[in-house]
């Protein structure tokens, strides 16, 4: 990197700074975890964050209407099924 900036010598950080940096690292880890979890859920056919695991029908609305009189259709099978 070019170091042409002639600004004064770095001032040592105050004690709070290391806690601030730790907090922002926690926030980043939280963001990565939530994104990873929600994308995993979604790419595997589940609801994704905030996790509507029970509310995602695997059937079209028309199929849903037809079958809703006979059996619950909200249970999601474990493997993702392609639309047919």
């Amino acid at each position, binding site marked *: 990197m070019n170091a042409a900036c002639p600004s004064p010598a770095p001032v040592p950080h105050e004690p709070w700074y290391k806690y601030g940096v730790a907090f922002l*690292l926690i926030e980043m880890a939280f963001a990565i975890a939530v994104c990873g979890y929600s994308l995993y*859920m979604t790419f595997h056919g589940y609801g*994704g964050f905030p996790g509507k695991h029970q509310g995602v029908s695997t059937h079209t609305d028309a199929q849903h209407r037809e079958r809703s009189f006979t059996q619950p259709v909200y249970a999601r099978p474990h493997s993702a099924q392609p639309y047919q």
Partner: protein
Amino acid sequence: MKTHKVEQLILATLGFFWCFLMWFSTAAFSPSIAAHYRLSIQALGLLASSAIWMAPVGRIIAGWASDRFGAPRTFAFILAGCGLISVASAYTSDYRLLFMERTIVAIAGVSFVVGIQHVAQWFDANEIGTAEGLYAGTGNVGAGIGALVLPRIFGTNYHGAFLWLGTIAIGIAAWYLVRGSAAKSAQQRKLVRERSNIRDTVFVWSRYIAIALMLAYAMSFGLEIAMNAWLPGYFTRGFHDAILALGFTSVAGVQIAAGTFAAVQSFTASLFRPFSGFMSDLFQRRKWAPLPFIAKSLPYAPRLHWLGISLVLITLSMVGLTIAGQTGSLHLSVGVLVVMGVFISCGTGGTFALVPLLFPDRPGAAAGFVGGVSTAAAIVYPLVFSTNSHIHMGYMRVALYIFVPFVLFYFWAARYELQPEEHGLLSRALAAEDA
């Protein structure tokens, strides 16, 4: 009153977090409100869009008020005012009155610039990036937390939610008034107060570097909130077959999948923002100034370079999103979107690591201008995205016709090696005699 700058940072962050929680609480309960009042799709869209109506003008006024009256008084006024109206809305049974009350509560979103001013008055130049990043990034999460947590706690009882949110806001306002302190020193407070006049505001607005920062924020935060509104529809239309292939075959399922893909952009953009402030501090500390054209001898030159890099990365990620969309790969598009969220956070954090340093005597006016006017961009981008019949090409169009000129203007405005804030559209005499 004895206090510490970390206490002031916590106060500002908590106040901002709660304001964002109130700002987006209407959206969190919009299905319940729509069901209760039997709203049409158009009425629901109007309710959703009303959240942003007050932002551009409101932030400009709030920025000026924080310079004039001090951040604690301004923040307490916003919290208490919005809190009281939120409490009133909990007892409202007429939809028109409820709509008006919730539009007023949405004013809470203007508090962003007040906290920026407050933090700038307490933290030194070598740590301002991290401090502003922690404030803005953590506070922004209030919007996401509201969408995720409020419906789980209150279910469809939005009356109860509005009551509690308003009551706690009034409590935070009282705490802010008692423990908040406007600036580190009386001398600094006096200087900022004296500069809170119309001539100094015009001076800030007419500076090339202020305009460049406003455009940089439009490229980052403006894009973030535009994408929040645009992406669910984009994924639903652009990747409909791919989402069906995942097993989301009902309308509700497709909406959930598309909403989840869209949410990752917003989530990473918010929570990586403190990291961007930290990177700005790191560039400053290591004196990294790698870009051509941009000034290298200014005391804060490395921060200008960090923001320049961020803007280039945002532009490239827009091109990448078009290319990923053209390949038809849903996984690749979502991956690019996550990266774009990080780059957007680099832009938002990098911008507000600079604003207080460029205008140390007018932090509120500068924050109001940069943070307020830029939100109007959120209205423009979706219009450009939707002008082409090929849905993936919209990002490329925005990158080429809007972002490239913005980046070039930034490089041009940041080239001055001495006092860039002296250069602007109006002469010094017209802008501010004593500026």
